């Protein structure tokens, strides 16, 4: 089977202070990122947060108003896209409709004047790699969505790019195919050691794929961290809310190890805040069980989700909590009195 040809050239990427405005819209507002060679970073953010703009600046399709893009330390901000050696998979594939699968994948090699025999070899190796051997002579319109996606991927990696960029590549695929493709991309990326940026607005996708996640909102990077870090220790309200289900409150540190919420409720939580400091508090719904912080309340809503029950509980102290419990026994009816609890170490304070 094909492996990465030797002597090549996965690179590290560093962008700093990127600014980009479109008229009144600030699409990028001081974006800085470091991506190590061979790393897969996902950029996760809601629609309009500037993800595509960031990718376009890295690929060279847009010039930033300020800031620079460096690959292996070399400033490429002014380099045209054709000379950046970056493989990109577009949201809607952008396969050449008049070219066969083979010719699509051969395209970047032909642009580099690679000899015929070498092209033939690399194209068939790469098509094997994405499991599309035997489809060489088909046109893109004769392929399914997933197959087209694989062709786009093959075309983006066949020339051993220094960087691979994927802009929500699986947006149009059904869930099952999506999951297959996610694992596929992960496998390929690891095997080829490609430095990769993967854009998505699907947090599960981000969790499955990445080494690290950069959460983006309103043109700013909110947090860059490993997947567990992002989930367990989000840096702010936006990240806590955007990734996973969450109960978020705000309060003040009244004594070490205690946060008093706005409604007066005192929570025992592990944190390093100083007395008097205002802090955010995050409790993940699935972390409730036994614990020091006990909440008594009434079930407002209960949903059966297969593995778990999801309960919305109005607590007597005025808080409203979303809680997940293992689906055991009957589903609590609305109006049922319940007690739920959480340990101080399961509460994240930020």
């Amino acid at each position, binding site marked *: 089977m094909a492996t990465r040809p030797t002597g090549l050239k996965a690179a590290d990427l560093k962008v700093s202070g990127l600014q980009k405005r479109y008229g009144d819209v600030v699409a990028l507002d001081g974006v800085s990122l470091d991506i190590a060679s061979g790393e897969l970073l996902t950029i996760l953010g809601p629609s309009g947060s500037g993800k595509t703009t960031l990718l376009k600046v890295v*690929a*060279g*399709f847009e010039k930033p108003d300020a800031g620079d893009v460096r690959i292996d330390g070399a400033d490429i901000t002014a380099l*045209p*896209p*054709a*000379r*950046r*050696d*970056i*493989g*990109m998979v*577009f949201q*809607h594939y*952008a396969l*050449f*409709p*008049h070219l066969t699968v083979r010719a699509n994948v051969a*395209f*970047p090699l032909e*642009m*580099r004047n690679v000899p015929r025999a070498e092209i033939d070899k690399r194209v068939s190796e790469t098509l094997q790699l994405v499991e599309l051997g035997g489809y060489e002579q088909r046109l893109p319109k004769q392929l399914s969505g997933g197959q087209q996606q694989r062709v786009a991927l093959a*075309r983006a990696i066949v*020339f051993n790019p220094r960087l691979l960029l994927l802009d929500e590549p699986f947006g149009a695929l059904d869930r099952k195919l999506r999951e297959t493709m996610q694992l596929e991309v992960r496998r390929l990326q690891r095997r080829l050691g490609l430095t990769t940026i993967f854009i998505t607005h699907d947090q599960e996708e981000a969790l499955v794929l990445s080494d690290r996640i950069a959460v983006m909102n309103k043109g700013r990077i909110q947090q860059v961290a490993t997947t567990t870090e992002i989930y367990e220790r989000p840096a702010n309200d936006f990240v806590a809310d955007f990734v996973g289900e969450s109960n978020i409150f705000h309060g003040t540190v009244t004594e070490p190890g205690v946060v008093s919420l706005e409604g007066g409720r005192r929570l025992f939580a592990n944190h390093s805040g100083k007395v008097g400091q205002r802090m955010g508090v995050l409790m993940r719904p699935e972390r409730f069980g036994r614990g020091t912080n006990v909440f008594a309340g009434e079930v407002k809503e209960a949903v059966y989700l297969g593995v778990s029950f999801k309960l919305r509980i109005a607590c007597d102290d005025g808080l409203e909590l979303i809680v997940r419990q293992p689906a055991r026994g009957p589903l609590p009816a609305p109006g049922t009195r319940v007690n739920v609890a959480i340990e101080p170490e399961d509460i994240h304070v930020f």
Partner: protein
Amino acid sequence: MSSRWLGAWPAIPALLLLFVFFLYPVVRMLGFSIEGGTLDWYTKALGESLYLQVFWNTFEIAFWVTLICLLLGYPLGFLLATTTPGWATVGFIFVLLPLWTSVLVRTYAWMVLLGRNGVFNRMMLEAGLISDPVPMLNNFSGVLIGMVHVLLPYMVLPIYGAVRRVDPALVSAAEGLGASNSRIFRRVYLPLTLPGIFAGSVIVFVLSLGFFITPALLGGGRVVMLAVMIEQQIHQTLNWPFAAALSAVLLVFTLAVYAAAQRFTRSADA
């Protein structure tokens, strides 16, 4: 079956119109051409070298007009499709302006410009570029210039449409994969706009085959195209059956070109 034909009702006035003003005259004309139950007029049209020469002239002119329109029209259509909306509007006015003026007026205007003492010759004489007037009227080049002017919009519009339909993401993709501008043009734009090139060429060629006013006036009787000769048969020789036979041959040629074009497009689509 009834529902299939129901949709045809609103089209009946148009169909009647076509029948009365198009199909019926054509059938009458074909009747003329075989008057007396003989194919003699066709033998004459396709057998005598004088007339074969006219057929040849007609195809030759149509070919050159199409080629020149393509060479001028592609860059123009491309430019209109890729420039800013403001410039595109200005450009369109210039491209479409000829379509809004009568062919007759435009052809006379060319006579003023191209004649022996016309504007072009006088300017070039005064500038010292030439010492004798260049003949540009009553010859092949005069007819070409006039016809290209009239027919250019028919080439520009389909090409404009084809360029507009090229997905900008494909151009970005090609660029990102390392293609230079000239290669983006050759490998992406050109193949994807072939249908537009083809449609424009067929329209211009077919219209050229039957062109009358421009070759009649700018050819000065020396460049004889088929339609000009048909007119001569009707008004000067008063030989209606022969005129009808020539018309029928022109019609068949035109339909043949059109049918070939259709087949070609269909096989390209498949």
